[in-house]
C-alpha cells in the first residue's frame, strides 16, 4: 500500500471557549476523493483549514505530502490548491485578471486558456466577478485552485447553492481532475454528492470523527435493512411470502406489499419465493437505504448550534 498523501492524528482545535475540533484522525490515500460530512458547526472547515496550514492546531499531528503544514507552509502552498467556503474576490475584478493574478503567484502554471475553456468560462473572460452567477463563481474558484496543477485539492462545500446541472458538471470535472492523479479532500452537506463522488467519507459531529469508510460499507453497517415493494391482486399474498427466511416484516396497503429484511440474499430469496409460488405481480421495486439515512441515524435529527 502506498503511503498516504495526508495523515491527521488526534487533531484538536478550540476558539476561545468553543471546542471546534475535539479529536479527529484519518488518512487520505493518493488519488482518493475523501469527503468530510457533518452537521453545521461540526468542525469540517476548521479541520480542513488546519490541514491546509491556515490554522494552527492546539493538539495533534498533521502531515501533508510529507510536509508539516505549519513549519513547511511556504512549500505546501505551492503544492496544494484551495477553494474556501463562501469566498469572494474583488467585486470588479475581471475573470481573466483573477486568473492572470493567480498565475503570477506560482512558478509553474497550467495553460490558463485551456483551463478557462475546460471550466466553461471562456465567454465570461471579461466579466466582473460581481456579475457572475453562483455556479460561474464556483467554477472560477476551482480554476484558481487548479492553476498550478496542485497535487492535493481542498474543496470546502463546492456545490452549495448550485442548480443540478451545474452540480453534475462540477462532479464530472472533479472526477476528471482525480483521474489525472490529484488527490481530493472535500466537505459537503449533500449526501448525494458524498455518495456519488467520494471513495470514502468521514462523518464528523461535535468535533469528533464518529465513522469513516466507503459509502456502501457505511450503509451496509448502519442501515442493512432492504425493502421489496410489489403489487399483486392475488389472494393471501402476505401469508404466501411470510415464510421466506430473510423477511422480517410484511405490510400491505390494498394490493401493495412491503417486505423488509436484511442480508445479501434477501432480494433474491423474495424473488425466488414469488416465482416458486407463481404469484402474478404487477409492479416490483427494491429500496436500499442511502448515506443520508446513515447520516441522520448517526447524527440525529433537529437543528444544531
Amino acid at each position, binding site marked *: 500500500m502506498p503511503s498516504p498523501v495526508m495523515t491527521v492524528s488526534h487533531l484538536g482545535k478550540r476558539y476561545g471557549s468553543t471546542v471546534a475540533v475535539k479529536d479527529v484522525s484519518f488518512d487520505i490515500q493518493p488519488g482518493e476523493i475523501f469527503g468530510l460530512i457533518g452537521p453545521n458547526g461540526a468542525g469540517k472547515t476548521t479541520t480542513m483549514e488546519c490541514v491546509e496550514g491556515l490554522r494552527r492546531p492546539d493538539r495533534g499531528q498533521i502531515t501533508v505530502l510529507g510536509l508539516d503544514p505549519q513549519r513547511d507552509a511556504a512549500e505546501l502552498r505551492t503544492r*496544494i490548491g484551495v477553494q474556501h467556503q463562501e469566498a469572494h474576490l474583488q467585486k470588479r475584478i475581471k475573470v481573466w485578471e483573477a486568473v492572470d493574478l493567480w498565475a503570477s503567484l506560482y512558478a509553474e502554471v497550467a495553460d490558463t486558456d485551456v483551463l478557462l475553456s475546460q471550466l466553461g468560462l471562456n465567454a465570461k473572460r471579461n466579466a466582473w466577478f460581481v456579475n457572475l452567477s453562483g455556479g460561474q463563481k464556483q467554477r472560477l474558484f476551482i480554476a484558481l485552485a487548479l492553476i498550478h496543477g496542485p497535487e492535493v485539492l481542498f474543496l470546502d462545500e463546492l456545490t452549495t447553492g448550485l442548480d443540478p446541472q451545474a452540480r453534475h458538471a462540477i462532479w464530472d470535472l472533479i472526477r476528471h481532475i482525480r483521474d489525472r492523479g490529484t488527490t481530493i479532500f472535500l466537505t459537503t452537506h449533500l449526501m448525494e454528492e458524498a455518495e456519488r463522488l467520494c471513495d470514502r467519507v468521514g462523518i464528523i459531529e461535535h468535533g469528533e470523527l464518529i465513522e469513516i469508510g466507503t459509502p456502501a460499507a457505511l450503509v451496509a453497517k448502519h442501515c442493512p435493512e432492504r425493502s421489496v415493494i410489489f403489487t399483486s391482486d392475488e389472494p393471501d399474498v402476505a401469508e404466501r411470502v411470510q415464510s421466506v427466511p430473510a423477511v422480517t416484516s410484511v405490510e400491505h396497503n390494498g394490493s401493495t406489499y412491503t417486505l423488509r429484511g436484511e442480508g445479501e440474499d434477501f432480494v433474491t430469496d423474495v424473488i425466488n419465493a414469488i416465482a416458486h409460488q407463481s404469484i402474478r405481480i404487477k409492479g416490483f421495486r427494491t429500496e436500499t437505504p442511502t448515506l443520508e439515512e446513515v447520516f441522520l441515524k448517526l447524527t440525529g435529527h433537529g437543528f444544531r448550534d
Partner: protein
Amino acid sequence: MLRGFWKLTWVETKVFLREPLGVIGSLGIPVIIFIVLGRAQGSRTLGNEAMGEAPFNLPILAALFIALGAAVSLVAIISLYREGGFLKRLRATPLSPVTILGAHVFVKLVLTVVGLALLTLVGRRFLPGAMDVDLLSFTAALLLSTVSILSLGFVIASLVPTARFAQPIGTGLLYPMIAVSGLFFPLEQLPPAIRVVAYGLPTTHAVSLMQGVWDGAGWGAHWVSVVALILIFGVCTGLSTKVFRWE
C-alpha cells in the same frame, strides 16, 4: 514574489479605478475643497509671501485630505476583503502577508502622488501662486506623512468589527485629527491633555513637516517631525502585526 506584487498592485489599481465612489472620495473631494476654499480665501493670500494673511495653509489641508482619504479607503478595502474571505484566500497562496498588504500601501502612495499632481495642475490653472513650493520636497513630505497615517489605518482596520462600519469608523477617527493638527491654530492654544494626544497623532507631525517645507526650511530643521512620523509608523506597524485579523 516580485511578479505577484506588481500584478496585485496593478489589479488593485484597476479595480479601484472602476469604483466611481472611491475615485471621487480619494481624489475629487480634496481637489474640490482646494478650489472652493481657495476661491473663497482669495488666491492672493495663498502665495508664499502672503501666508501670514491666510487663515491656514490650504494646500496642506488639501494634501492632508488626500492622505486621510487614502487611509479611510485602505480601512474600507481591508475590512471588505477580510469579510469576503479574500485575504484568507490569498494567504493560501505563496504570496507573503507583507507582500499582500505592501501592494495595498503602494497603490495608496501612487494615488497620493497622483492627487498631489492634480492639485498642482488645478492650482496652476485656477489659483495662481497657490502651489509655489519645492514640489519634490513637498511630495516627499506628503509621502512620508501618508505612510505614517496608513500604518495607523492598519491598526484601525484591525479594530473595526465589520465592513459595514469600516467607512464611518475610519472617517470618524481619521478626519477629526486635522482639527488638532496645528493647521488651524497653534498647538499651544490646546488644553494640555489634548495637546499630548495631538503630539501622538501623525497628522500633527505631517502638518509641521509640510509647513516647514512650505516655508522653505530644509528637512534638517524639521527632523523632530520626521523622526516622529517614522516612530509612529514603527509603533503602528508593530501593533498591526500583533492585532491584525486576516478573517
